[in-house]
C-alpha cells in the first residue's frame, strides 16, 4: 500500500548556516558540537512512512524534536533538507498557497492545549476548518454538528469553549479536525494536558473513531503507555533522531539500543505499580468471634474457599480454608481455634508488584495487604497479580487514581 505520509531524510536545523549544519550532521557531527556554535538541530535524518489507516505514534521526551517533526508533516515548518510527501506529493516544493490547500484538504491537526477560539461557540469552532475551506454556512454547520455528535458532544454547539471541561474542550478540538474530513490527522500531545482518567477515555474514543472512520493518524506523545496503547507502530525519538520504529511489542522485547531499553525498563509496570494499586477489597471477612457455622455460611454465600478473619478493629487474625471449616462443622466445634491459620504471608501497601511474586507463590491463600495497625486493607488473588503484568485498563485506572 502506498504510504500517505512519507518523510525522506528530513532535517530541521535552527540557527545561522543551517544548510552547512545539515552537511556536518550527515558527516557525523553531534548535536552537542553544533549547539556550541549556536545551532539547534531539532530533527536529524528522519525517515519514516505512515500507511493509510495506521496510527503512527512518535514518542520522545521534551526537546526530542517530535513536535518539530510533526510540524514538518503539514508544512508549518519547512524542512531544512529532505523531502516530505503527503499522498505522494512533495510538500517541500509547494508554494504557500498550494501548501494551504494541502492542509485544508488533506491534513488536519489537534493541539496540546486545544487551541479553541474563545470568542466562537463550540459549533463555530468545530466548523472552523470548513469555514477556511469556503464551505457554505448551512453545510458546515451540519457537518460540525455531525462531528460533535461523533465525539459525544451532541447539543453543546451553542456553548462557549470556556464553559467546557478540559476533556470536553479537546473533544471539540477533535471534532474540528474530524469535520474537515481529511484523511490525515496530526495530533500534537493531544491528550497530555488532560488528567489521567480523561486521557484514557479519550484514547479509547480515538481508537474507536479510528476503527470507524479509518483515519491515518500521526500522534505525538511523551507518554510511553499512551504510545503503546494507541500506536500500530511507534517511532522512538531522542535528541532529534529516530532511534527505533516498530510495534509496541518489538520495542518492548527487542529495543534497538540502551536508550530505548532503559526507557522501556523505566515503565516496567511491575516496578511502578504497588500492592495498593492492584489490591481488591475482600469479598467477605469473618469476625474473630464467629464460629465455623458462620464461616461455612459466608463461604457458601460468596462461593469462597478461604476467608480472612479479622477482629473488631479490622486487624488481621488469620485465614480459614473451606475443607477445615467443613471438618469443624462436622465435628460440631463452636470456635475457630483449631482451624485458624495464623502463620500466613502478608504484604504492606507500598510493596512493588515485582516483589509480590515470591510471597504469592508460597501462599495457599490470596495475599492480604495490611495498612496501618495491621488492618486488612485489601487482598490480592494470584489471578489479579498476573493480570497486572498485562497492560490492562483496570490496573491503569487505579494507578491514575
Amino acid at each position, binding site marked *: 500500500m502506498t504510504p500517505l505520509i512519507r518523510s525522506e531524510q528530513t532535517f530541521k536545523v535552527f540557527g545561522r548556516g543551517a544548510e552547512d549544519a545539515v552537511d556536518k550532521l550527515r558527516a557525523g557531527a553531534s548535536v552537542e558540537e553544533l549547539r556550541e556554535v549556536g545551532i539547534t538541530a531539532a530533527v536529524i535524518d528522519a525517515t519514516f512512512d505512515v500507511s493509510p489507516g495506521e496510527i503512527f505514534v512518535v514518542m520522545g521526551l521534551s526537546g526530542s524534536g517530535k513536535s518539530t517533526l510533526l510540524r514538518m508533516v503539514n508544512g508549518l515548518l519547512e524542512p531544512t533538507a529532505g523531502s516530505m510527501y503527503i499522498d505522494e506529493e512533495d510538500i517541500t516544493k509547494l508554494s504557500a498557497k498550494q501548501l494551504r490547500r494541502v492542509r485544508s484538504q488533506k491534513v*488536519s491537526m489537534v493541539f496540546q492545549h486545544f487551541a479553541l*477560539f474563545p470568542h466562537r461557540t463550540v459549533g463555530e469552532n468545530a466548523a472552523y476548518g470548513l469555514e*477556511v475551506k469556503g464551505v457554505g454556512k448551512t453545510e458546515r454547520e451540519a457537518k460540525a454538528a455531525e462531528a460533535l455528535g461523533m465525539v459525544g458532544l451532541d447539543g453543546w454547539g451553542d456553548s462557549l469553549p470556556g464553559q467546557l471541561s478540559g476533556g470536553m474542550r479537546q473533544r471539540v478540538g477533535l471534532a474540528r479536525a474530524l469535520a474537515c474530513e481529511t484523511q490525515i490527522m496530526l495530533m500534537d500531545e493531544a491528550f497530555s494536558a488532560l488528567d489521567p482518567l480523561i486521557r484514557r477515555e479519550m484514547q479509547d474514543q480515538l481508537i474507536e473513531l479510528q476503527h470507524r472512520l479509518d483515519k491515518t493518524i500521526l500522534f505525538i506523545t511523551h507518554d510511553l503507555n499512551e504510545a503503546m496503547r494507541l500506536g500500530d507502530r511507534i517511532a522512538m525519538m531522542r535528541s532529534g533522531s529516530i532511534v527505533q520504529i516498530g510495534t509496541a511489542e518489538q520495542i518492548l522485547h527487542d529495543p534497538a539500543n540502551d536508550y530505548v531499553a532503559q526507557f522501556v525498563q523505566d515503565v516496567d509496570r511491575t516496578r511502578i505499580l504497588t500492592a495498593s494499586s492492584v489490591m481488591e477489597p475482600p469479598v467477605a471477612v469473618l469476625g474473630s468471634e464467629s464460629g465455623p457455622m458462620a464461616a461455612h455460611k459466608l463461604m457458601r454465600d460468596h462461593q469462597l474457599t478461604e476467608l480472612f478473619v479479622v477482629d473488631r478493629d479490622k486487624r488481621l487474625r488469620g485465614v480459614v480454608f473451606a475443607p477445615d471449616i467443613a471438618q469443624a462443622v462436622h465435628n460440631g466445634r463452636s470456635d475457630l481455634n483449631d482451624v485458624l491459620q495464623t502463620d500466613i504471608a502478608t504484604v504492606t501497601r507500598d510493596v512493588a508488584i515485582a516483589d509480590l511474586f515470591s510471597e504469592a507463590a508460597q501462599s495457599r491463600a490470596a495475599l492480604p495487604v495490611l495498612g496501618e495497625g495491621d488492618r486488612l486493607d485489601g487482598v490480592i488473588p494470584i489471578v489479579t497479580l498476573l493480570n497486572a503484568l498485562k497492560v490492562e485498563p483496570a490496573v491503569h485506572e487505579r494507578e491514575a487514581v
Partner: protein
Amino acid sequence: MDQDFLPALPIGDWFAALVTWVSDNLGGLLSLIGFVLDDLLYEHLSDLLTAIPPLIMALALGLLGFFVRGWKFGLGSLIGMLAIQAMRWWPESMDTLALVLIAAFFATIFAIPIGIAAARNSQVSGVVRPIMDFMQTMPAFVYLIPTLFFFGIGATPGIVATIIFAMAPGVRLTELGIRQVDPEMVEAGHAFGAPPKQILFRIQIPLAMPTIMAGINQVIMLSLSMVVIAGIVGAGGLGGAVYSGITRLDIAKGFSAGVGVVILAVYLDRLTAALGSRSAVAKATKKTAPAH
C-alpha cells in the same frame, strides 16, 4: 567645561529649515489637509452638535451611556451634561467634543494599521517603537509650533497636533494585543490552511480586541487633553476658554471651563471603556468566568 569643547548642534535650526521647506513646497497638500479637517469636518460636526438643543443632546448622551453601561452611568451622564449647560459652557463643550472625535478618529485610523504592521514584523516594530516614544515624550506644546506654522491660527493645527500626540498608545496597544494572542491559536489557523489575512482578521484582531479597545480609550483621553492645550493656537472650545482664563487671570472662568473638561473626560473614558468590554472575547470571558 568649555562650552566650545563640542561643536554646537543646531538641531532646532535643522527642524525649522525642514518646516520652512515643507510649508514652501507642500503648500497644496497642507491646504488640502486644512480644508478637510477644518472646513469639511470640524465646521460641520461642531455646527451639528451645537445645533441640537442642549437638553435633547444631554438626554441623547445620557441614553447612550445607559445603553452602553447601565442606568447609573446614564443618569450620571445626564446630570453632568446638564451641569455643563448650567455653567454656560455648552457650545464650547460641543466644539471640544467635535475636535476630540475628529482627532481621535484619525489617530485611531493611523494607529491601528501601524500597530498591526509592527506586530507582524519585528523590523517595523523596531522602527516604530522609538518614534512612538519620541512622539509621546515630546512636550505637547512643541507640536503646536510647526502646525501653527503650517496651518495658521484655528482648529487645524490643534487637530493635527492632537492626532500626532494621541496616536502612540493606539499603536502600542494594538501591537501588544496582537503579539499577546496565544501562538497556538495562530498556528491552528495556519494548520487548517487559513491565509494570513484571514488569520489576522478572524483570529488575531478579534482576540486582541480588548487590548485594542483599551488603546482607543487611551487615544481618546490623550486627544481630550491635547485638544484643551490646543486652545492656545485658537482651536476654540473649552481649551480656548481655559486659555483665555489664564491670559486674563480669570479664576472663575478657568476653573469652570476646567470642570467642563473633567465632565467630558469622565464621560468619554467610561463610555469607551465599556465599549471595550462588549467585544466578543470580553463577553466570552465574562460569560465563562466562575460564578463567585
